[in-house]
C-alpha cells in the first residue's frame, strides 16, 4: 500500500513557482526524505497534499484516498509539523495541545506529557514567551501526540539543538518501527542520509530523482581524491574537479581499470576512492539543471 501517491501533481499560483508534474510515491512504513533547496517546492508539495492548496492539475492520494474528496479522513491520520510553527499567542502550550487533541476528538494528555518530558518542553509556558526552538517542540508534540499513521514534517529540525534533534529522531524511529510512515522535507542532506530509507529530490518544482537512500549514494560515479598531483589524469568521465596545492579531487564515472592505468605513471602519494555523498549528488543536480530530467534517472537514481 502506498502512503502518498501523486501523479502529475501540479500547483502554480501567484508569483510562487509551485510544483510541476510531480510523480511521487511513498510506501506505507517508509522513512522518506524530501530534499531540495529553499524555494524548490517542498512546502508547496506538502501544503497541496494536506489540502491547504488546491492542485492546479494532476492527482494525489494518501492511503488510497483522494486529497480533494476525503480531506477530513486523510487529515485524521496525519500529524503535520509546519516549517514555521505558529500558534495562538495568548495560549499556553498545554492549551494548544488540548485544542489540537479536541479538534481530533481524542484525549492525548498522557502522550503529550510523555513527549513534552522527552523533548524538555514546559507545558505551562505561554506561547508568546517561547523561543523559536521551544515553539518548534510544541509543534512536534502537536504532530505526534495523537500517534497518526503518517507524519508529514516540513523541515522539522530547524531551530532545535543537536540533543533535542537526536531525541526527536529517536521518537520518529520508534513510531516508524511501530508501522507509521514518516515523510520529512529537509535541505540538510546528512540528516536525510542518516535517518531516511528513501529520498526524493526536488528542484524548481520538478522531481529529479526518487530512490532508496543507499542507491542514491551508490551511483556509477566515484569521488577520487589523489595526493601528489595537481590535476586529474586525461580521461573521459571526469567532472567536478577540485584542485588543491598538492592534491586533486574529482568525480569519475567509467572503467576502474582505465582510471588505475591512467594514475599508475603519475607521482600519486595518496589516494582514496569513495562513493560520493548525498550532498554531492544533490549539488550536482542543483547545479546542472538541463541534463537531469530524464526518466531513467528518476527510476534508477544512477544519474552521476
Amino acid at each position, binding site marked *: 500500500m502506498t502512503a502518498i501517491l501523486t501523479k502529475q501533481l501540479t500547483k502554480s499560483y501567484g508569483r510562487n513557482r509551485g510544483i510541476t508534474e510531480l510523480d511521487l510515491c511513498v510506501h506505507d512504513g517508509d522513512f522518506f526524505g524530501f530534499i531540495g533547496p529553499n524555494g524548490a517546492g517542498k512546502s508547496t508539495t506538502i501544503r497541496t497534499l494536506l489540502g491547504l*492548496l488546491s492542485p492546479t492539475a494532476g492527482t494525489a492520494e494518501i492511503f488510497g484516498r483522494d486529497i480533494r474528496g476525503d480531506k477530513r479522513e486523510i487529515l485524521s491520520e496525519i500529524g503535520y509539523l509546519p516549517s514555521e510553527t505558529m500558534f495562538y499567542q495568548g495560549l499556553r502550550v498545554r492549551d494548544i495541545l488540548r*485544542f489540537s487533541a479536541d479538534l481530533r476528538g481524542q484525549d492525548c494528555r498522557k502522550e503529550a506529557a510523555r513527549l513534552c518530558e522527552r523533548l524538555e518542553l514546559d507545558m505551562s509556558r505561554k506561547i508568546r514567551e517561547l523561543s523559536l526552538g521551544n515553539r518548534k517542540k510544541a509543534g512536534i508534540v502537536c504532530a505526534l501526540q495523537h500517534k497518526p499513521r503518517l507524519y508529514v514534517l516540513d523541515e522539522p529540525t530547524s531551530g532545535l539543538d543537536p540533543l533535542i534533534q537526536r531525541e526527536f529522531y529517536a521518537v520518529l524511529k520508534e513510531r516508524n518501527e511501530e508501522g507509521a510512515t514518516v515523510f520529512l522535507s529537509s535541505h540538510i542532506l546528512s540528516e536525510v542520509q542518516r535517518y531516511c530509507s528513501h529520498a526524493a529530490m526536488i528542484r524548481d518544482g520538478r522531481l529529479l530523482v526518487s530512490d532508496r537512500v543507499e542507491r542514491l549514494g551508490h551511483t556509477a560515479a566515484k569521488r577520487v581524491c589523489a595526493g601528489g598531483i595537481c590535476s586529474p589524469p586525461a580521461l573521459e568521465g571526469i567532472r567536478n574537479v577540485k584542485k588543491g596545492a598538492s592534491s586533486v579531487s574529482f568525480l569519475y564515472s567509467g572503467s576502474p581499470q582505465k582510471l588505475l592505468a591512467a594514475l599508475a605513471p603519475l607521482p600519486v602519494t595518496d589516494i582514496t576512492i569513495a562513493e560520493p555523498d548525498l550532498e554531492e549528488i544533490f549539488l550536482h543536480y542543483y547545479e546542472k539543471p538541463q541534463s537531469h530530467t530524464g526518466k531513467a534517472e528518476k527510476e534508477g537514481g544512477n544519474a552521476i
Partner: protein
Amino acid sequence: MTIWKHELRAGRASLCVWFGAIAFLLAVCVLIYPEMAGQMDEMSETFSQMGGFSQAFGMDRLNFGEFIGFFGIECGNVLGLGGALFAALTGIAALSKEEEGHTAEFLLTHPVSRPRVVAEKLCAVMTQIILLNAAAAAVTYLCIAAIGESPDGKTMALLFLAYLLMQAEIAVICFGISAFLGRGGTGIGLGLAAVFYFLNMIANLTEQARFLKYVTPFGYAESADIITEGRLEGKYLAAGAFFALVGVIAAFIRYARKDIG
C-alpha cells in the same frame, strides 16, 4: 463546538473591553437623564430646530422631554455605533486573523472541514454580539430602574432588537469580506461601519437619498422611526437580511476554495 469555544475564549478580553465601554456610556446616559429632564422641554425644542443636523440624527421627530425620546437618541448612538464597530471588527477578523497570525496552517491541517470552521466561527461572532447586547440591555434596565423611569417595554425591546439585528448584519457582511482577505482587515471593518452610519444620516436628510436606507443596516435601526412607528421597517429589514445572506454564502464558498499560503 471546539472552534466555537476557542473563539469565545480568544475574544473574551475584547468583548469585556467593548462591553465595559458601551455599558459605562449607556449607564452615564441613562443616569444623567433625571438631571436633564427639567431642562428637556427647552432643549427638545432647540434640538428639533437645528435643521439638517436634527434631521440627520432623527431629532426632529423625537421628543427629548420623554425618556424614550432621549434614550433613542443618546443610547441609540452609543449602542448602535459602539455595537456596530465591535460587530465590524469581530466579523472582519474572524477568518482573516488565522492567516494574518499564520495559524490557519495549524487549524486547517486538523480533521475539520472548512465549512465547519466557517460555521463555528460565524456562531462565535454571533454569540459575542448577542452577549454584548444582552449585557448592555441588562445594564440599561438596571439603570432605568435606578432612576425610576418606566418606558414602554415593547418600544424598548424593539430598539434593542433593532440594534442587535443591525450589528448582526454588519458582522456577517464583514465576515463575508474576511473570507477574501489574507490579512487582518481592521481598516475595512471600521470604514464599512462608519460608511453605513453616515449613509443613514444622509438618508435622513433628503427624500432623494431615502433609498440609502435599503443599503445601510442603520436604516432599520433608526430610533426615531422605531419610536414613532412602533415597529421595525420590514422592507429595510428584508434588504438587510438579503445582504447578510450574501455575506454568509460568500464566506462559505470562498473559504472552502481558498488557498492558504
